[in-house]
């Protein structure tokens, strides 16, 4: 199964020298340990760089753009991995090794499974809608 490991930590710029020095080796060690079970993921720039976009009403409605992240919180989404694990226990055990787990917290969520509705709108469309990478 595919799981997203959403990494919530204090809002840091991980590309800044002191933070990079502290965290990059730890994340590199995690990647080595996780091996092929990491199938995707990226670190994110700090929320100061975030822009939130919303369309009012329906498609084609007024586009409202605002500065900042979707929600102002003490710990913020600072990156994510896509993990390929047999089950939740394995995903949780692996998530516990992501440095963000002791820097903040990791939310583990299964990627949505469209297999049950494929018959309704065609395998191709389901596949594109659910395209993971």
């Amino acid at each position, binding site marked *: 199964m595919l799981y997203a490991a959403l990494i919530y930590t204090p809002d840091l710029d991980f590309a800044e020298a002191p933070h990079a020095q502290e965290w990059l080796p730890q994340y590199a060690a995690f990647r080595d340990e996780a091996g092929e079970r990491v199938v995707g993921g990226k670190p994110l720039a700090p929320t100061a760089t975030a822009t939130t976009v919303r369309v009012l009403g329906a498609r084609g409605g007024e586009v409202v753009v605002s500065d900042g992240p979707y929600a102002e919180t003490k710990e913020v989404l600072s990156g994510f991995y896509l993990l390929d694990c047999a*089950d939740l226990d394995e995903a949780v055990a692996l998530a516990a090794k992501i440095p963000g787990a002791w820097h903040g917290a990791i939310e583990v*969520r*299964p990627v949505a499974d469209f297999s049950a509705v494929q018959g309704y709108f065609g395998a191709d469309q389901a596949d594109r809608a659910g395209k993971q990478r």
Partner: protein
Amino acid sequence: MEDPLAQTVRLEGARILATLVRTVGDLGIAEDAVQEATVTALREWPGSGVPDSPRAWLTVVARHKATDLIRREGQRGRKEREATQLLDQTTPEPPEPVGAVGSDDQLRLIFVCCHPALAPESRVALALRTLCGLDVPEIAAALLTSEAAMAKRLTRTRQKIKQAGIRYRVPAAEELPARLTAVCAVVHGLYTAGHTRLAGASLLDVDLCTEAVRLARLLRELLPDEAQPEALLALLLLTEARRPARIGPDGEPVLLADQDRSRWDAAAIDEGVRLLASSLDRTEGQADPYQLQAAIAAQHAVAPTASATDWAEIARLYDLLLSVQPDSAPAALGRAVAVAEAYGTPAGLAALDALDASAPDPHDHRRTAIRAELLARLGHYAEAAATMRRSLDEPLPDPERTHRLGRIAIWEARR
């Protein structure tokens, strides 16, 4: 009321689930398979007669259903194919390494169900539903919540298990303590369901009580250094010790004051009191709800006569229990009764009034019945009879209903 055939099917179904889920490795599939097998049994047994071994019959049918279900799901992976292969063999279940949780299928599966990725109340509800075979109203009553909330919770829990990919896996030794509180709650809920039937022909279900005591004993043996299983076993033994005297020759309830105390199980009481003392030593006097409830049960169990009961101490223990479980309606009711006994009927009625004001619950027939008894003690027979009549609006076990109708008849003759 549930007929005996349906009850056999339900209880045996819950028992074979424990074994089947181990083979399939998927609670949802095992549950569906057992459900289909029990439906088949209920359809066929009335015509063909109950087989010699209902459990063996249900096991064979449920395994076939599970195989079908897995095949139907088609695109599933290697693990499921292995499970199908296992199921195709007609040999007995493969033995599983005993491991940290011991050799009892039922207890092991309760530990599996009490997964930390599920909310604590959900773990308990799920285990009671799927492993112990309780129905939604029974679970709601045991866990002090409404039926609607419980049904919703069970649905959400099943969805999370399926969607989040929580699989059957026996926890390792170091994972047990984190699951212990929920496991204790499952065993306690099972006992409560057996000890206090909500409806039907009998006041209690001896099988459920016995199974809960058995599990509590296994749990204590599994984790002998933990205070909680020790207190739970103490509570169940001290309650169970009085069970034989609770029911009269015709299945009618016998009130505590009228019980033949020579029929109480003295050995179980001794053991319960010892376990409670040992458990309290471990927590250095900091009492948890099981310890407090066990202490209340012990007060009753060691009183040589009803009149020698230390009701003031029982009221004090209920106060402590309510300080750690402020929302427990049964504890608040127990306290009101103890207050009535210790400090007089008006004080007990005042406690009931306070309870009504803070937590109105029009469906609590026990509260209504206790109010009726207290009113009768004050000689307000007409009001007592009318109040007791209101308590009959809810589902009740038949003997309890008969008992209350008898009280009403006595009071109406006096007014």
